[in-house]
């Protein structure tokens, strides 16, 4: 085995024997996610009240009016009719004031009737449009599509029966309504409100990723104090290799943490009656933001490790700074609850960058590009910490 592999394996072996480390990395966040998802269930993402929606009709046709009427009778939705233009509606959706909007464009009745007469859509078919707020989860999206689609199908079918006299058993596939659904991603998307599980999973994941400081510093300080590092130097292992071989194993550990905590959000939280976490659209984006968070966490952990003289000092210092990062960074108290001044202060916490990155993906359905600013900041933070740690390390090791 080359020395490199031996050093990597050693880190994992030490972590495997570090019960406190494992507890803090894997059990703590899972427990926090479960507790917080339950505790915030009614505050965040309240599902029991009617879903607020807009309806904007630019068509005065018969069919359009009928649709409007039937929609208002739908259970679980509260429609507000508006005459505003699409731009205004998009703004309201992106501010999450309404979950979706149904747009009936001008000429829709006519287009639908042409379709009924000819058995096929005319040259320029006019479709119903449903705009969805970014926070709308896929189940709701499906529900809206099914409800609206169902009403339109039934309506047109009834009309066909009465007006044209066709029997109900003719193939009605062609009256399948044409509906376009579209998410709104606006400039206000940062102010979206996460559900309990959307808040808890990223929050405690980021928090626990930073807690690699406990196992890293404990292992490092013991090997420095007891002379294992000296022994490695005596057999010609460079200080650089000693330090960098601590990064890779913990990077992997952080990724495992991410997978496990997402699984907790998807499978365990619903078991206890909470919302299910919807898996992110962009797995690549997840990988980028979790890599950034991991590099920041490990760099910071190593900085604390080389700085502290005893394990007690390291775990105290590391633990306290993590709690401060968390309190500031929207981990303990969701950022949207904070007053604007505190939200501005939150930006100084690297945990808030990680948190925002994960929210970009889970809440705002962003792509990998959306997390680049946060991931970049985290990598920079981690890189600077690592460089400092390395400088202190090479000086103190002799």
């Amino acid at each position: 085995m080359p020395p490199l592999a031996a050093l990597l394996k050693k880190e994992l072996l030490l972590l495997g024997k570090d019960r406190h480390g494992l507890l803090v990395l894997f059990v703590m966040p899972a427990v926090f996610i479960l507790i917080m998802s339950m505790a915030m269930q009614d505050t965040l993402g309240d599902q029991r009240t009617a879903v607020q929606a807009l309806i904007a009709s630019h068509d005065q046709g018969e069919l359009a009016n009928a649709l409007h009427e039937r929609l208002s009778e739908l259970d679980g939705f509260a429609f507000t009719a508006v005459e505003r233009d699409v731009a205004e509606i998009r703004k309201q959706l992106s501010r999450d004031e309404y979950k979706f909007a149904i747009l009936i464009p001008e000429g829709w009745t006519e287009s639908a009737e042409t379709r009924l007469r000819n058995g096929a859509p005319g040259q320029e078919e006019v479709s119903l449009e449903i705009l969805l707020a970014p926070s709308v989860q896929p189940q709701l999206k499906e529900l809206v599509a099914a409800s609206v689609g169902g009403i339109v199908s039934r309506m047109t079918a009834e009309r066909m029966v009465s007006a044209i006299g066709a029997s109900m058993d003719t193939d009605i596939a062609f009256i399948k309504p044409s509906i376009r659904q579209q998410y709104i991603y606006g400039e206000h998307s940062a102010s979206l409100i996460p559900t309990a599980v959307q808040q808890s999973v990223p929050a405690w994941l980021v928090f626990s990723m930073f807690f690699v400081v406990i196992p890293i510093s404990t292992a490092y300080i013991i090997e420095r104090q007891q002379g294992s590092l000296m022994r490695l130097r005596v057999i010609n292992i460079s200080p650089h290799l000693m330090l960098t071989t601590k990064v890779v194993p913990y990077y992997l550990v952080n990724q495992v943490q991410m997978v496990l905590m997402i699984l907790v959000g998807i499978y365990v939280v619903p078991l206890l009656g909470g919302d299910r976490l919807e898996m992110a659209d962009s797995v690549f984006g997840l990988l980028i933001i979790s890599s950034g968070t991991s590099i920041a966490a490990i760099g910071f952990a190593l900085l604390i490790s080389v700085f502290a003289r005893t394990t007690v000092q390291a775990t105290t210092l590391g633990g306290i700074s993590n709690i401060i990062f968390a309190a500031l960074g929207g981990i303990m108290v969701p950022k949207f609850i904070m007053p604007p001044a505190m939200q501005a202060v939150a930006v100084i916490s690297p945990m808030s960058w990680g948190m925002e990155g994960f929210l970009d993906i889970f809440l705002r359905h962003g792509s990998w590009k959306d997390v680049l600013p946060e991931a970049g900041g985290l990598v920079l933070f981690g890189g600077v910490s690592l460089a400092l740690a390395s400088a202190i390390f090479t000086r103190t090791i002799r």
Partner: protein
Amino acid sequence: MIELNDIEKAYGGQPVLRGISLTIPEGAVFGLLGPNGAGKTTLLSILFGLIPMDSGTLSVKKLDLRRELRRIRAFMGLVPQSLAFYPTLSARENLDFFASALGLSRSERRRRIAFCVETAGLETWLDRRSGLYSGGLKRRLNLAIGLLGNPRILCLDEPTIGIDPQSRSFILETIQWLNREGVTVIYTSHYMEEVQQICTDVAIIDEGRILVNDSLDSLLHNSSNRLEIGLSRPLPELLASTLALTAGDRRIRLAEATAEEISTLLKQLTEARIGVEYIDYGNRNLESLFLELTHRTLRD
């Protein structure tokens, strides 16, 4: 074959080594004897390139330390004063890790680990968490790890500190056996009996200076006029002051005494009705040598 020439080292302006010159012959068991804080560990750290020396030169097998450190380290082994291994890992895991870090192939590794386990007598404890070992066992594991690289020069920094007599003699015997197998040994200690028992050559270091450096034989068997008399009761004040000794002592120690002085002394003791329990004359041990050289005992 290890040559140290006028080595100096200071920590923050405080001199710790003040011009150390030594020659350590090949095949020796070289004892570096000195009280706490004398600079023994500092000297070994310099020898392994762990800390830089301020001035002086050091060569091992004609290789200059400053230029050929990596090559020198390749045939040297260190058993540090601290228990330098991972207490949460078992002896086997520790040995396996350090052997792998040495870059040994799988078969070599297995062979070396088997050798070290046997040499240090670790067989029955291999898979227990090493942090739970007894003091003696920990010292033996510390020794075993130092042997993994098959060193031709083995440096042991107080390898018997804080352990029971059985473990101590096991370690001392192991060191002697390794020496017979051709390993040059450098051994630091502040236990003179140990050094006297196993070393062929000795240097006494105190406050960063070498006080003597010679073979054990010539140090101990040089003609000596040292005197020690054991007393039946503590020395009374009156007699103590005439003899310029400390009242209350149960023995009289003189670095040098002539035959005449001895008979006068015995007469004075008889007059003061102090019985003589033993007389030790002309013999030397390292402790008395140290006392002669520094006028204080090794243990203070």
